[in-house]
Structure formats: C-alpha cells, structure tokens
C-alpha cells in the first residue's frame, strides 16, 4: 500500500497532511475540521457529564463511608479488560444506528475513572481532618462538602482528566460505527487510501488529547487548596513521612 522508503518522504507526508488541514475547503462546512472538532468535543463532554452524574455521588459516598470499596476495584479492573471496539460495535447493533449507542458506550467507559477519582480523593483525606471536623460538631454532610470534597478536588479533577482522555480516544474509534467527530477523517480516508486525510485526522486527535490533558492539569493545579500539595509519588510520600 504505502511504502515510505523514499528519503524525505516522512516530512512530505506530514507536510501534506498539515496542508490538508489548512486547506480552506477542509476547514469549514458541515464535514470540515471545525465542525468535526465541535462534534468530538460535544460527544466527549456530554458523555463525561452523564457519567459524572452517576459516578461522582457514588464515588463520594464510597469514599466517605468506606462501603462498596470492593465494587470500585472490581469495576475498574473488569472494564479495563473489556475491548472498547467490541463494546461500541455491540451496542450499535443492539440499539441501532444513531447517537444513543456510541454515547452510551462512551458514558460506560467514563464511569470507572470518575468513580476511582472521587473515591480515592475522599479516601486520601487525612482521617485526623475529618475526625476534627466531626469533633467540632459538623454534620456528616458538612464534613463531606466542606472538608473532604475540597481536599479531594485535585484527585477528583484527576478522575475527570483520565475519563475525558479515555472518551476522546474511544470517540475516535467509534467513528467506525459510524459517529461524527475527528475519527471520521481516519475512516473516510482509509477505504480510498487518502493517507494525508487519515494522517490529518490522527494529528488533530493527538493535538486535541494533548491540549485537553494540559487544560485539566491546569485546573488540577488551580483547585488544589493552599497548604495541600498532592503527593505525586512515593518519594514525596517518603519525604513527608520523614
């Protein structure tokens, strides 16, 4: 199909696909880059939002009470082995074409990281802090909303960060079903061997993923309460303990 052995072909291909992206005819219109980017963000945002409505309260509950911890661990493990492409195609057959099936698949895949983030966030709160809050007479609800959630925010947002990235990646794959979004460029280019178009799609998704990761990293930094530095690794843990 494509042999890329000619010297300098690497730059040629990349250059071709960048030219492809910035061709005015490819940028605008209902199947243009901007429209596809909008679709991609819309699908991803909507499914993470739906998943958050289910997963965040549940995760906070599990973190606060310590009940159902086994469920979270089992769910994250089980869903990791579930092939995303299998889930997307199966739901599309069972629920029919349209937006419902792919959006449901994306929502299902966004739940485990959100659940884990909320649960781990609350659980990471020093028991001395929540205990002190209880001792000064706060109700359980006040402890959760005024002590645990603020302290859990960095990890909570971390859950949104990995959920969003998971969904951005899967939405690309779901273009096979077919769904709109940036993955369309890859699947539209594939059968006609339009490599610059496929490559353009790939580059756009990668840029989207890197930019959203950076945005979430920034939000994580902003919501970290003063005086709380998230221990990023065991070494930091060790330094704190010493």
């Amino acid at each position: 199909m494509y042999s890329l052995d000619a010297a300098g072909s690497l730059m040629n291909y990349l250059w071709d696909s960048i030219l492809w992206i910035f061709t005015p005819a490819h940028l605008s219109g209902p199947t243009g880059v901007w429209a596809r980017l909008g679709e991609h963000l819309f699908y991803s945002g909507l499914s993470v939002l739906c998943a958050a409505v289910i997963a965040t309260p549940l995760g906070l509950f599990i973190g606060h009470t310590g009940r159902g911890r086994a469920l979270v661990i089992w769910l994250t493990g089980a869903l990791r082995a579930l092939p995303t492409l299998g889930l997307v195609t199966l739901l599309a057959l069972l629920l029919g074409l349209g937006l419902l099936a792919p959006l449901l698949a994306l929502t299902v895949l966004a739940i485990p990281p959100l659940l884990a983030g909320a649960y781990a966030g609350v659980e990471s709160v020093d028991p001395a802090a929540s205990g002190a809050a209880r001792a000064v007479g706060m109700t359980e609800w006040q402890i959760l909303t005024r002590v645990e959630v603020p302290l859990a925010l960095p990890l909570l947002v971390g859950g949104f960060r990995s959920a969003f990235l998971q969904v951005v990646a899967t939405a690309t794959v779901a273009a096979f079903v077919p769904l709109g979004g940036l993955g369309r460029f890859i699947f539209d280019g594939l059968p006609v061997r339009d490599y610059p178009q496929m490559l353009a799609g790939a580059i756009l998704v990668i840029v989207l993923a890197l930019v959203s990761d950076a945005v979430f990293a920034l939000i994580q930094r902003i919501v970290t309460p003063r005086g709380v530095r998230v221990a990023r690794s065991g070494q930091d843990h060790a330094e704190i303990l010493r």
Partner: protein
Amino acid sequence: MEWIFANAENIWRLTRDHFALSLPPIVLGLVFSLPLGWLAHRYRWSRGALLTVSGLLYTIPSLPLFVILPVLIGTKILDPINVVIALTLYAVALLLRTVTEAFDSVSPEVRQSSLAVGFSPLQRVTRVELPLALPIVVAGLRVVSASTVSLVSVGSLIGVSSLGDLFTSGFQRDFPTEIMVGIGGTILIAGLLDLLIVLGGRWCTPWMRPARS
C-alpha cells in the same frame, strides 16, 4: 452456537494472532521500563524528563498513533509491527511510573543496611531493591497486560488481524454473536495472561507467601 463451531478454525487463528500481538508489548514493556524506571527513581533530572515524556505518550489515543507511526518510523501502514511498537510504547509509559514508585517504596534503612553489609551498587539493585520492588511492579504489569490485550483489537480498524476482526465483521454483517465471541475471547486471553503474571510474581517472591502453620 452453530456459527462458533462452523468458524472454530477462524476464531482459533484470530485468537492466536491476538495473543501473538499482545505478548511482545507486555514483555518488552517490562524489559524497557525496569532500567528506565530505576533511572527515574535514582536521579532528579532523569525523573522529571522520563515521567513527563511517558505521561505525554500515554495521553496519545491508540488509533491515531497506529496511523501516524508508519510515517514516523518508515514502516508500511498495514504492517503489524506498528501495533506492536505502539502498544510497547504505552506499556513502557504506564509501567515506567509504577517501576519508579516501586523503587521509591524500598525503605532507606534497607538500602543503607545492604550498603553496610558490603553489597556492590549493582548487587544492591538486583538483589535487594529489585526483589523488594517486585510486588508493586507485578501489580502494574497486570494493568498493562489487561489494557494491551484490549487495545490490540483496535488494530483491526487499520487491517491488522486479531479478535478485533470479529467486531468489525460482526458489525458489518449485523451479527451480535460474532462480536460477543470476540469480547469473550479477548477477556479469556486477558484472564490467562493475568493468571500467568500472578503465578510468575508469586514464584519470584516466595517470601510474600503466607506462612503455613
């Protein structure tokens, strides 16, 4: 059910392909991430650089990486090697952090004692730090194995044969059974590899076994 028996040979071939594509990234991921993870654990400069690069790498979605990789390394787009290399990169990216944290978790007292009783620097790494870090590494390897087996099927979208072929063809022929067989097979492979890793980990860390009494 009939379909499964009629296509047993094809399913078996795809299962073997799937396994063959899953194993190298997991093994290579471990081989590369052990020295790199130790390096990240040991020096401040390498820690920042390695963990940043692996974090960025892990952010890149799989299908776009499969598409862009042939251009970057000069392979053919249908070559299965693209999938193996891409999944190896993910495995290294994911394991590197775990290995770093595993080495971090070895207590300084143990490290200093090994120095005091005369272990050479290399012996200290291979005979004291690595064995103590192993349980955490094994836990990380299990995560890598499950996600690798799951991601292999995405390769079917660009024509690299695996159990993922059952997803694409099942979808195109409107035949859910085929997709379910594919999902079942993928989970079986993941389960088998997980079992092997757990057993291997137990064999390597006999001191972790509960004492019989």
